[in-house]
């Protein structure tokens, strides 16, 4: 970015910062324009405000729900479910991947098609099955999140460990590093970017399915809030739920971004130089 700017030769320091600011704001113009259009649309008669209420109405409803503490309860419930299932999936997937590809490569090769088959399964097709086996309570929700995030993380971790540059492994081994040391110091850091990709994918899928699971069978959570509002034809609350879900999804993505930046800081440096 910097090199580009100097190459283009901006006249002065002030113009450069102004340009940078404009570029940074560029992203917001679209969103602000969209919100403005949304706010004005019912007034201009472009849509029915009963079905698509303007943002101001949704904001007012959100404040009411927040004041009663309801929104927080539902959001916390959803977040707890998502994080619990995700944490359990990570806790199982990473050691399993390490064990499989680090120490049992033949077994991994043997099991790879089965893992691919299982990870290709639409978690939704399994949803009625989970309800049947685990009931409608928290366990079924936990199971569906765990299942839908387990396979992306497991697959990514196995691929990441397998995709490590053999030269690095040989170099470490030729310097007399023990197997465990090679694994911890070479294989794991090499696999981290891939693991983060898997984690991101797993988290996105898990959150998606959490909301749907809450819509199908729950009496708390943001998914339930949306579904219940739809059933009761309480439109502004429906939109509050939908926006909260979007916000939570973005927050989850942001958290993973932060984690990635923290774990892969060496990669960032390479990119910047």
């Amino acid at each position: 970015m910097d090199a580009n700017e100097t190459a283009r030769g901006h006249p002065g320091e002030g113009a450069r910062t102004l340009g940078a600011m404009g570029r940074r704001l560029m992203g917001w113009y679209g969103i602000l324009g969209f919100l403005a259009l949304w706010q004005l649309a019912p007034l201009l008669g472009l849509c029915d405000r009963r079905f698509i209420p303007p943002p101001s109405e949704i904001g007012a409803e959100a404040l009411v729900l927040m004041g009663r503490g309801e929104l927080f309860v539902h959001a916390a419930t959803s977040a707890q479910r998502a994080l619990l299932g995700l944490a359990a999936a990570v806790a199982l997937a990473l050691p399993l991947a390490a064990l499989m590809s680090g120490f049992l490569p033949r077994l991994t090769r043997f099991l790879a098609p089965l893992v691919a088959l299982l990870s290709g399964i639409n978690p939704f097709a399994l949803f009625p099955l989970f309800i049947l086996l685990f009931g409608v309570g928290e366990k079924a929700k936990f199971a569906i999140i765990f299942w839908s995030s387990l396979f992306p993380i497991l697959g990514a971790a196995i691929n990441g460990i397998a995709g490590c540059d053999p030269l690095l492994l040989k170099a470490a081994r030729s310097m007399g590093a023990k197997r465990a040391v090679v694994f911890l110091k070479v294989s794991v850091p090499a696999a981290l970017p891939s693991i983060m990709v898997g984690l991101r994918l797993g988290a996105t899928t898990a959150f998606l399915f959490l909301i749907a699971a809450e819509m199908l069978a729950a009496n708390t959570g943001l998914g339930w809030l949306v579904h219940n509002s739809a059933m009761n034809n309480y439109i502004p609350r429906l939109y509050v739920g939908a926006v909260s879900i979007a916000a939570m999804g973005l927050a989850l993505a942001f958290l993973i971004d932060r984690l990635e930046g923290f774990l892969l800081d060496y990669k960032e440096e390479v990119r910047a130089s």
Partner: protein
Amino acid sequence: MKRIGGFFGDSFYRFGSIVLFVLAWQTLCSTGLAPGTFVASPAVIAETLAKWAVNGFLARHGLISLSRALYGFLLAVAVGVPLGFLLGGWFKAAGRILDPLLKFLGQFNPFALFSVFMLIFGLGETSKVAMIFWVSLWPILHNASLGVRTVDPLFVKLARSLGLSRPRILWRIVVPSSAPYLFSGLRQASGTAFFMLIPAEMLGAARGLGWLIINAQINYQIPQLYAGTAIIVAIGLAIDALFRFLEGQVVRWREKAAV
């Protein structure tokens, strides 16, 4: 002899675990370790599927689901590809302004919107098709615009200096160069379309495969539930395999260049 051994070894690695899994499942069921009230054995699933195939039940629900997914997907292709090309190639400033908004909308949880779609489009086919359209639009749009943006400007300049007309530049240079991205977008979208259709049919439908399994669960019809699940899984995997195959066929030249 060695080649035969290699062949057997290969298919052992390719199918061994799956065969073993099915056999273990069957054994657990027939020995009674997995209770029949909860788990249907592979044999029972196969029997149910065969019965459905004969009496046309499978074709009826399967075709409805597939046609919903197909309509939504085709609509998304018809809107997403041209829009992506326009935003990525011709109106770059508009593309830059709209990019964050489009990203946000693409990340918007489609289930939260499904209720809105039902409100606006009703309980009929339209809301299901709208949902599929929505979820498959974003990967197509994103990848189409990304593909156009990664076209080597040198090629475009060269073509222009050789006096090629704009439609010809589009067809001979932009489309082939962005084909890999386009296809990866199409594959993602086709997967998502079928993925999302199932819960959509569970939430509001009276026909289709999603309805089939949720109905089987509510009525405690274990063989039907497992058979329906199996067929959904099979169709999902088949769609993915089909698009991988198509991708390989169309984008073959790139493979060679990479080697």
